[in-house]
């Protein structure tokens, strides 16, 4: 019995040995990513090819579909969603902009969304450096705007956000699975 105990302890140490790097954070399953407007601004900047100054930058985490049903299941309809994963998504405006006729001062904001079957409500909010939408506060909203849902034929395995040039400014495109939305922003 004593020997078995010793062997058991030995095996336990062996298994624990594989956890030696426990303080070192692993690569995130929903990795963070960055989008800028102008598109690829940091790369253009070092090549002296940027034709206009940076207007906006988004930091967002990219959850992966992994065979799951996304909207209406993993992400509930009609509930505030963090528009990503992990820390809630943040946008920095480097100049004042207008969304849905509401003027937004330059600075950093969080973005949330309330997905529904036919439309998403996009929320720009003042809370920063937070996790998810668990402590979301309506009183910190800056603007809410409804945008229609586009159903796409191509499937995006990971949640995505990208900017593109648009009338009077630029637009945020975001989506996951077979759903995509576009949020126009004017400068």
């Amino acid at each position, binding site marked *: 019995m004593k*020997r*078995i105990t010793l*062997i*058991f302890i030995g*095996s*336990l140490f*062996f*298994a624990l*040995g*594989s956890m*030696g*790097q426990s*303080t*070192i*954070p*692993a*690569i*995130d*399953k929903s*990795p*963070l*990513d*960055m*989008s*800028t407007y102008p598109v690829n*601004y*940091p*790369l253009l*900047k*070092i090549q002296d090819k940027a034709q206009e100054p*940076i207007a906006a*930058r988004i*930091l967002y985490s*990219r959850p*992966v579909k992994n065979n799951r049903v996304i909207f209406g299941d993993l992400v509930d309809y009609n509930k505030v969603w963090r528009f990503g994963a992990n*820390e809630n998504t943040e946008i920095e405006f*480097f100049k004042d902009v207008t969304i849905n006729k509401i003027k937004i001062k330059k600075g950093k904001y969080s973005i949330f969304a309330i997905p529904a079957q036919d439309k998403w409500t996009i929320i720009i909010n003042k809370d920063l*450096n*937070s*996790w*998810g939408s*668990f*402590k979301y506060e309506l009183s910190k909203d800056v603007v809410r705007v409804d945008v229609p849902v586009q159903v*796409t034929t*191509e*499937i*995006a*395995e*990971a949640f*995505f*956000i*990208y900017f593109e040039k648009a009338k009077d400014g630029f637009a945020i*495109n975001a*989506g996951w699975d077979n759903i*995509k939305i576009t949020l126009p922003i004017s400068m």
Partner: protein
Amino acid sequence: MNRSLTRLSVFFTLFILSCTTVAKKENTADASIDSITNSTNPYVKMDQSPLDLSWCPANYPIEKMKGNDSLKLIAKLTYSRPHKKGRALFGESKDNLCAYNVPWRLGANEATEIQFFENVNIAGQNILKGTYVLYCIPHADRWTIIFNSNLSTWGLHINESKDVFKTDIPVTKQEPPIEDFTMLFEDTPTGANLIMAWDNVKSVLPIIFSKGK
């Protein structure tokens, strides 16, 4: 005879169990990086060297969500995490990915940025709150850590005329070696250490600030 057989079988079961636990763990780690970076996306491809955040204090947003109101946010670090993938990283040769005496972006892709939410002290120098690009010049025995004010840029072609502060810190051995470049904050009695580690190299930047709320 029966008893020793039981002992043997218990030993082997435990041994095999512990082996498969280790193997499983490593396999899923590798598989998840590849499946993430190779996953289909018609709009924005996943990055080979994904971006990550480190918070000082560690995991600040999660702690805040849990209701830990005593924590004061000091710093937020945004950096990309390249993988070693069998390459020679730190060394004398120009072929090394992070060659000695050549500025290195402390990450990948966009320049690494650190935001301080209050003034801190590093190597006797007062660093004003705000956002800085962080890069380093690796040497065999030390790293020169440099704060730069040219924000929202790519990590290459650093504009040295925008350097605002530099300090040398010693290099120690990272054991066991690390596959993915890692930066994290660890609490100290006088503030926090910014730990930077990749492969078998580790350096520590002590940051001093007041702990009171």
